[in-house]
């Protein structure tokens, strides 16, 4: 604050503060408060708004638990509301995406942080960033083309003899998983890269010197050091995946349902913003609970992540 004052003087500093306050208040806090308030009111024709039917209730939230269908979970038939089922599906596949992303990102991050010579590092970073110059919509479409039944991926796999039958990639959640991993992998790579980069190379060598094979060095020395980076990467990838609308919409199949699509249906197709808002907040709260639970299980502190 003092620093800002000294560098830009009182007028500019005041302008910065006002702009930031405006941004926070008008574009973040107010819309959220409005939505939050709306989520407790019923969806009514315009003439009834403010009338006797317009009162606060949890009815919108209650819709989440309506419409039970029998669902097969680990061989047991359990009646489950359809939206709850979609929610758990979204959580499950987002977790899967996070795990796959970690498996892909960790070796890459280690390679960048400790193996590559510092001279070729800028080139490699550039190569990683180039795809980001293309819009997310186009990239998802590109995957839709790549993964098509008669698309290039199947052609290559058949041509090289790895497969003898084309695979229907855009089926169930497959293409969504591939698309999400691709879209968010860098959000995992960079926090882990930063964490591993800060590890003293002598520690890796000390472990080796004491006779440790590579996998134990990773397990006992590098992974524990990288844990905060892994945690922040995982939280980001999970939240972004669960909240993604574009990828499930473009790469989804008739059998895949993402919770954001349900919210979209309420808001755009049913024009029921009140229920849509209720679902949004429910989703946010439940995802936050889930993330906190996982962090607690893995003994990660919030301050570790902020580092």
């Amino acid at each position, binding site marked *: 604050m003092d620093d800002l004052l000294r560098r830009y003087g009182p007028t500019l500093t005041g302008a910065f503060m006002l702009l930031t306050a405006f941004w926070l208040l008008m574009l973040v806090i107010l819309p959220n408060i409005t939505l939050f308030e709306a989520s407790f009111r019923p969806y009514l024709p315009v003439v009834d708004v403010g009338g006797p039917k317009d009162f606060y209730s949890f009815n919108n939230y209650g819709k989440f638990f309506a419409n039970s269908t029998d669902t097969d979970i680990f061989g047991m038939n359990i009646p489950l509301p359809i939206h709850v089922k979609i929610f758990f599906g979204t959580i499950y596949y987002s977790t899967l995406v996070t795990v796959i992303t970690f498996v892909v990102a960790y070796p890459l991050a280690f390679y960048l942080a400790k193996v590559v010579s510092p001279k070729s590092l800028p080139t490699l970073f550039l190569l990683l960033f180039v795809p980001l110059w293309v819009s997310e919509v186009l990239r998802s479409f590109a995957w839709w083309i790549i993964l098509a039944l008669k698309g290039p991926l199947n052609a290559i796999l058949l041509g090289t003899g790895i497969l003898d039958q084309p695979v229907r990639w855009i089926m169930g959640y497959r293409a969504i998983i591939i698309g999400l991993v691709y879209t968010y992998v860098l959000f995992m790579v960079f926090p882990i890269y930063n964490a591993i980069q800060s590890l*003293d190379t*002598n*520690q890796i*060598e*000390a*472990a*080796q*010197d*004491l*006779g*440790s*094979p590579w996998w*134990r060095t990773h397990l*006992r*020395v590098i992974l*524990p*050091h990288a844990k905060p980076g892994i945690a922040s990467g995982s939280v980001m990838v999970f939240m972004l995946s669960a909240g993604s609308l574009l990828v499930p919409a473009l790469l989804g199949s008739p059998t895949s349902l993402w919770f954001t699509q349900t919210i979209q249906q309420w808001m755009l197709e049913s024009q029921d913003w009140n229920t849509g808002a209720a679902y949004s907040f429910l989703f946010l709260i439940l995802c936050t609970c889930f993330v906190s639970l996982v962090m607690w299980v893995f003994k990660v502190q919030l301050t570790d992540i902020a580092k």
Partner: protein
Amino acid sequence: MSAGIDLDNVCCDFGSFRAVDHVNVSIKPGEFFSFLGPSGCGKTTILRMISGFTDPSSGVIRIGDKDMKGQRPNQRPTALIFQNLALFPLMPIWENISFGLEVRGVGKTERRAKAEELLRLVDLPGAADKMVSQLSGGQKQRVAIARALAVEPSVMLLDEPLSALDLKLRQHMRAELRAIQKRTGVTFIYITHDQGEALAMSDRVGVMSQGKLQQVADPRDIYNNPSNGFVASFVGENNIFAGTVGAVADGMARFDTAHGTFRARVNTTSGKDLKLYVRPEHTIISSFPGAENSLPATVTDVAFEGNFISVHAVSDSGATLMAELRNDGSSAIPVTGEKLHMSFAAERASILPDGLTRGE
């Protein structure tokens, strides 16, 4: 179990830069051997080649008569103590110490017992459950030693392990390290740029400069009979005279300089840039001219160093000279501006060539 190490014409190049240049040395089992040299002379590179983190560009490294070519660091019977110790900050002390045993599949209770035993050996009992950040510099040092000893290496490699400690602790740890080495009988290869440390601790010292091993000898010989000017200057102070060698007889030579003609020991008259070196403590101060090798001089400064007194003077011919007097009351202490004679015995002075330089 300790093992000897042979370095046979070992070189190490980084691009076109030769960091280690044709090093030949044979270190005996159970020996305390030091590499001594200024920063950047290639000491760490030698240690990294012995432990397997850097491959020699040419030459052979043998540990216990076994060629180490192609052996990974985790396959060699060496344990390296890093310059910054590289303890694992996320493990408690006992896990740090027993990490090498964990790697070898030793059970937890046995590991714990071994860690406690080693902590007693390095005089740090009761620290098993502390974290690295809770220890002082000297205590971390001991943990690093215990961690290296835990894998029962045949060779311990120590890279300037005491450089981060303060003077008192450093002197204490010198004795401690020496004692641990004697107790365990492990071959120690010790790296330092501190000549006092190398001379006080080692069985033998290898003095290095510019990637070249200049001399290998026991500490007394290194100090009393340096093989060249670099060694003489690096391990102590000297009065130095440039000149030319005259007649040689029985290992003694005449040496003509701008400050007069002297007589001194000589081993070789070949080698470039022969100079005469004599230590300040072997330079005698007297009010009469000496029988030989004597210069009339004027005292320019007298510095009281505690256990000795250092007398700086300039000869009438313009040479700067230094002499040391013991602070035991046996000799009169001169004062600045006093005229006197400085001389030295021919047996105490050596005619030496310059040190070996890179690429020679």
